[in-house]
């Protein structure tokens, strides 16, 4: 049985194809550009062709992300938080706390032992701007975003950068640069400031192991490290979790079909 998940985010569209709720056949990402629906369709189709499947092979499509209502070929839709929870459980069944750092706001949720979301927080306005921030920081540092993690990991004593707002943090970074502080310490400081903004919402939903990180931040090895420093606890990460929401959506579709099957009998 094939199910698909489409995550239409602010900047990127992600698609995942799942077989029997077990094997992830394809995951891919594309810019949302200024036609989210078009981008969603395109992502879905290329995912199908990559999996060598036909539209008719797919029994259920779940859309998520802030464009979810605009995905006209969906069977149903779920919010980012619900999808992220499902995705986290798919990869790490022991997950009880989910952290999803988006380009804009950050979402944290606490799950019960069955994976049901029991508490969640969307960060306050002022805590926003996680993802985009690191992009710009690397830009000012004159490095590529992909270099950021290696640099940050070299850091001996990261500088403290305000955790209160990403715009202020950005100015601080620039000021630090003018003070000749080693770039790696600045970069790790920047990563930690993003992590720092996530701590309060995590504590507010009630930190319970295992903690799983969903979303783009999984590409940056330095971030989970910083998060672990704050939480004093292991954080599950993997490159697959970059597609956590899309896979989660596909997984929700699979579970939905099973429920239906049960009802049918």
């Amino acid at each position, binding site marked *: 049985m094939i199910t698909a998940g489409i995550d239409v985010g602010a900047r990127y569209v992600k698609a995942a194809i799942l077989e029997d709720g077990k094997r992830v056949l394809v995951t891919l990402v594309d810019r949302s550009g200024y036609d989210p629906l078009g981008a969603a369709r395109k992502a879905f189709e290329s995912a199908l062709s990559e999996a060598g499947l036909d539209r008719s092979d797919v029994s259920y499509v779940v859309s998520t992300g802030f464009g979810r209502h605009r995905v006209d070929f969906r069977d149903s839709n779920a919010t980012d938080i619900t999808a992220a929870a499902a995705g986290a459980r798919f990869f790490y069944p022991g997950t009880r706390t989910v952290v999803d750092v988006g380009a804009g706001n950050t979402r944290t949720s606490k799950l019960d032992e069955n994976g049901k979301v029991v508490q969640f927080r969307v960060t306050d306005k002022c805590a926003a701007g996680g993802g985009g921030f690191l992009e710009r920081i690397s830009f000012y540092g004159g490095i590529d975003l992909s270099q950021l993690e290696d640099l940050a990991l070299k850091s001996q004593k990261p500088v403290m950068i305000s955790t209160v707002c990403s715009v202020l943090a950005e100015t*601080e970074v620039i000021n630090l640069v003018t003070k000749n502080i080693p770039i790696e310490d600045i970069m790790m400081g920047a990563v930690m400031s993003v992590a720092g903004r996530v701590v309060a919402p995590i504590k507010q939903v009630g930190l319970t192991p295992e903690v799983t990180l969903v979303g783009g931040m999984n590409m940056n090895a330095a971030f989970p490290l910083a998060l672990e420093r704050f939480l004093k606890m292991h954080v599950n990460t993997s490159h697959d979790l970059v597609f956590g929401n899309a896979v989660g959506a596909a997984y929700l579709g699979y579970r939905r079909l099973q429920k239906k099957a049960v009802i049918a009998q």
Partner: protein
Amino acid sequence: MSASATARGRALTSEEAAQYRVPKEYNQAVALQSQLVRKYFEDLAAAAAKGKKMAYGLVEANPIEILRLFDIPAVYPEVFSLQISYKGGALPLMLAAENEGYSTDCCSYVKSGVAAVPPIGTGQTPLGYVPKPDIAVLTYSGCQIYIHWWEQYHYWTGAKIFTLDIPYVRDYERDRYVPRHDVRYVADQLMDVISQLEQITGIRYSEEKLREILTYSADAWDHWRMALEMGKKVPSPLDGYFEAIYYMSLITLTRGDKTTADYYRFLVDELQRRAEAGIGPTPEEQFRLVFEGVPNYPYYKDWWSLFKRWNARGVVGTYPKVTGVVDYFRFNPDRPIETIAEYMIHAYCNWNMLMRADLLKYYVDAYKADGVVIHSIKSCRSFSMGQGDFKEYFVGMDVPTLMLESDHVDPRYYSDAQMRNRIDAFFESLALRKGLK
């Protein structure tokens, strides 16, 4: 070569000035002050250890004379919060409070005040032990957040709130008008609190004793005013903002006894000696400034030095008037209850915005200032909301005005480079105005 020097002629700024310290023999009041404040905190800890009932009080409109009368030690969370911040210990408290659901938009006094004591904190702070409140005396004067803050204590610690509702000086049509029913209302409430304290402490209320305490307060108060008004001298022997903020601790914490009264006599005397010796807070006096707003405590000295390096002196500030607008109010021991009521009404932030603007204008003229520095902090909307309007007001009168922004407790809002930038630019334009080269 130093910043903003001119190619010819002498430098306008110098790092020596930035680091300048008043010679010891002319700077004993500060040392004495911190010694007495330390003693105050030790006495608190001792009283707490003896299991004495602890009252929490607020800086604006604190009826400290009445608490003295009933021998109740008073803790001022504003004061311990700012001292913790001054010692660089505020950030952990901010984070602890935010983990409990307080927003970054909440006042950082409230956050550090609540997070320092149980159940959120332990009471152990960089200042030593801070006891949690049994009685919380709510003097609602000048700040609405006081109410919400005290409510937090009530729900977290079960502290009993004693409410004193102080009407705002609010009649825009009649300048400086305080309706009789305001004073009567406050006086009635004071009598009500007094009778409650009689029951709690078993001490009888004695108007005579209160007069005696108030006589000390009045004495300290008059010398406090004399000290601040020394800023009118050109050059000014004191920094009426950065130094006055040190000096204001005792008028806030321990008013109403001989030690405090003597302290302010000593201060006036020291400032006299400075004036005679031509000594001031900076090597020389190049600029005279009026300061409006709460200071930045986490980076107090760095921030101050950004002004000192330009040989600028704050000749007067509004912040030291949060304990009462000294220029306007005097204690009158012969009408003990009324005088306390009036004192509570005339806290700076309890004055309406028109009166505040007028006071600033008066300061600019009477203290012969070159300009106004407004420090705007998100934490204190009571102080800050509308400071942009003050700026307009002064632009209209062609008084140079500098707007700065950070926070008084939370270190996360201070950006050194931006502060420096704005301050340097301000002085560059002031220098042009004054034709300095």
